[in-house]
């Protein structure tokens, strides 16, 4: 075979593969939602979205990244809908004109998990601030998400409230993983360390080793999820009808009931709490 004929065949095959891989589902209605690793890892979406899809015929493509990365990609207009859990950044996102129609959908809570031996003796302590101070005092390892996600921001707020600046070389016990929730739990399990996790990811997490929930049930550990549409005035390609359909459904009585019905081993993972209205 000569090089020229090789190139010709190559080009033909290239065109063929290009047609094969081009998404041939142009007529299918779909919407792209940027969301967080905690909701994806908990299995909520693979339970919830098929219900919406069979009802409306709209496919939901979920891209699950940390809240920081999700907000950034949504600012770039790379999705139609955004569902994250960091109220302060969400309100800023809306105020800056990047998103519209924010609604509070559901909440769960954060828990502090740690090794069963519990070197900092925080087990059963409801006072999360005191627990963090005890972890620092004991010098036991604490793994932080360290990825500017919603959970990481919540964790940093708690350290601030405890009067502790954990970041920096002077605190070798504080390890920033720079990873998603599941990956961070794997690290904490591997090194018998404490970490802050959302309850959803924890309940569906399968590699706990010696970790168990030590601190829970404090109002400071409340974790609110919000959903919003990427502003179509700024990004004209946003699929407004499909995006609104998803937001309407997830905040409708039916969608809210479905969220409440999602359980793992009999435990409810998310509490629906849409109270009407939006910002």
């Amino acid at each position: 075979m000569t090089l020229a004929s090789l190139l010709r065949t190559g080009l033909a095959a290239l065109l063929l593969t290009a047609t094969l891989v081009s998404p041939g589902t142009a007529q299918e209605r779909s919407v792209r939602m940027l969301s967080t690793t905690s909701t994806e890892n908990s299995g909520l979406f693979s339970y919830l979205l098929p219900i919406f899809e069979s009802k409306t015929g709209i496919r939901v493509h979920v891209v699950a990244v940390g809240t920081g990365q999700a907000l950034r990609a949504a600012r770039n207009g790379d999705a139609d809908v955004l569902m994250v859990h960091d109220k302060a950044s969400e309100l800023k996102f809306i105020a800056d004109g990047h998103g519209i129609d924010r609604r509070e959908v559901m909440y769960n809570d954060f828990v502090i998990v740690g090794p069963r031996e519990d070197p900092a003796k925080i087990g059963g302590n409801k006072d999360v601030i005191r627990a963090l101070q005890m972890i620092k005092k004991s010098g036991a390892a604490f793994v932080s998400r360290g990825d500017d996600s919603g959970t990481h921001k919540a964790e940093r707020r708690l350290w601030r409230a405890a009067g502790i600046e954990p970041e920096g070389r002077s605190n070798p016990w504080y390890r920033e993983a720079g990873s998603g929730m599941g990956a961070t739990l794997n690290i904490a399990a591997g090194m018998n360390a404490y970490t802050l996790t959302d309850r959803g990811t924890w309940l569906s997490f399968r590699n706990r080793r010696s970790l168990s929930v030590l601190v829970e049930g404090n109002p400071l550990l409340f974790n609110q999820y919000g959903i919003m549409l990427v502003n179509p005035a700024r990004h004209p390609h946003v699929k407004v009808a499909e995006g609104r359909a998803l937001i309407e459904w997830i905040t409708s009585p039916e969608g809210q009931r479905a969220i409440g019905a999602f359980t793992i081993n009999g435990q409810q993972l998310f509490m629906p709490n849409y109270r009407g209205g939006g910002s």
Partner: protein
Amino acid sequence: MSEIWRALGKAMVLIADFDPDLVEIIGLSLRVSLTAVFIATVIGLPVGAAVALFRFPGRPVLVVLINALMGLPPVVVGLIVYLLLSRAGPFGVFNLLYTPTAMIIAQAILIGPIVAALTRQTVEDLWQEYGEQLTSFGVGPGRAVRTLLWDGRFSLLTGVLAGFGRASAEVGAVMIVGGNIDHLTRVMTTSITLETSKGNLEIALALGIILLIIALGINASAYAIRDVAYRAES
């Protein structure tokens, strides 16, 4: 250790079940990586051969650059392709982000330098060996390139296989530009990452074993083709 055995068992069960989701994921992995290898070869082969045979200003710089690009971190390629394809980026209007096409582009950029660099080395070595002969026979440069590429085809095949290996094994780039969307851009490596982060270490490892089996299959077929070709010649 027992976990690894359990993962092996799980891998066998997954394969035996012929799980439709798994078949879809494997199919997409192969489609993306093979297409990327193909594009990288179509571009990398002529570029590598040209750099090997022609002398032009800045050539040493180009050689070093191509060799260095072999070590491009996938996540950096992913980021660059993300910024290019993002709605806010220069190619945003094509709406390619979070599609298999975006993943193919990222992987082709990742392995193009591998194919080009290995082609350049192969052709250059052959040229040192046969260059004088070819010139004395009065063979023109175009013909010489073809002869050398054909002579070096088995070494070049190894280069292409190295490219495929890198493409099918990387996760950093496809995660960023594909988004690991279920039934759309989820491939073997992003599934492994997802299952690991769910703590399903055995399923993750089972998927890894299946990926290894696929790589073995592809390399074995390449070896077999090579073997048949050798025999046909001798």
